C-alpha cells in the first residue's frame, strides 16, 4: 500500500526530472533537473531493498558526478549556446526513431499482456546479514578480478581526464 504510493511519487520525480533535463534551455537548469531525477532513482533503489546502491547513488551520482557537471558548466561559457538553436537539424528523425522504438515496446507489452517473466523462486537459501554485507561478500570473493580491473579503469580515467583538460598538452 505504502510501497505503491511511494513508487508513484518516485516515478513522477524520475520521469519529470528526466523530461525537464532534456528540454531546458539553460544547462544549469538541466543539471538541477537531473539531480531531481537521480533522487527519484535512488528512492526506487530503496523500495527494492538495495540500500547500498541507494547510498552510492546519492553520494557518487548526486555528490560526485553532478558537482563535476556543474563545475564544467561554470568553467565553459554557455551564454552563447543558450541564445542559439537548442535542437539539431535531425531532431524530427530522432523523435521518429524513438517513437518507433516506443511503439515496438508497447506492442510487445500488449501482445502477450505480460512481459512473460517466469515466476521468481519461492525460497532461496537463508540469507544472513544485511544488503551491504552480502554485497561485500560477493564483490570481494566471486567478483574480485572484475573489481580490480575496474579500479584500473578508474586510474586510466583519472590520468586521461587530467591529460585532456591540461592547458599545454
Amino acid at each position: 500500500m505504502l510501497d505503491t504510493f511511494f513508487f508513484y511519487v518516485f516515478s513522477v520525480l524520475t520521469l519529470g526530472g528526466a523530461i525537464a533535463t532534456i528540454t531546458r534551455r539553460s544547462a544549469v537548469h538541466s543539471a538541477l533537473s537531473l539531480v531531481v531525477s537521480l533522487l527519484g532513482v535512488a528512492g526506487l533503489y530503496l523500495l527494492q531493498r538495495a540500500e547500498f546502491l541507494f547510498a552510492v547513488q546519492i553520494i557518487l551520482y548526486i555528490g560526485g558526478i553532478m558537482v563535476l557537471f556543474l563545475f564544467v558548466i561554470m568553467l565553459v561559457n554557455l551564454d552563447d549556446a543558450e541564445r542559439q538553436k537548442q535542437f539539431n537539424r535531425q531532431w524530427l528523425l530522432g523523435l521518429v526513431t524513438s517513437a518507433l522504438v516506443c511503439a515496438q515496446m508497447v506492442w510487445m507489452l500488449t501482445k502477450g499482456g505480460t512481459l512473460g517473466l517466469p515466476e521468481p523462486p519461492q525460497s532461496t537459501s537463508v540469507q544472513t546479514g544485511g544488503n551491504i554485507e552480502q554485497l561485500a561478500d560477493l564483490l570481494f570473493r566471486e567478483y574480485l578480478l572484475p573489481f580490480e580491473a575496474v579500479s584500473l579503469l578508474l586510474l586510466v580515467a583519472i590520468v586521461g581526464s587530467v591529460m585532456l583538460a591540461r592547458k599545454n598538452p
Partner: protein
Amino acid sequence: MLHPITTNHYLILSAALLLIGTVGVLTRRNIVIVLMSIELILNAVNINLVTMSHHWKNLHGQIFAVFVITVAVAEAAIGLGILIALFRNKETVQADEIDLLKW
C-alpha cells in the same frame, strides 16, 4: 484502488527513462546536455538490473549495477575533459558545429 507494484511496473518505468534519454542524445545540440542524457540512459539500465536482482532474489544484478556506475563515472570524467579541451580550441559546445573530420 492502489494495486500492488509488480516487476513489470519497474520495467516499464525504466523503458520510459531509456526513451527519454535517447531522445535527449538524438535531438539536443549542447554537448553538456547530451552527456547528461547518457547518464539518464545508464540510470535506466541500473533500474532494470536492480529490478531483476529483486525479482530473482539474488545480488548479482546489484553487483553489476555497481560496475555500471563506475563506468559511468569514468565516462563522465573523460567526456567533460574532452569538452574542456574542445571548448579551448573551437570556442563552441554545439555538437553539430564540430566537424573537423568532415570533408
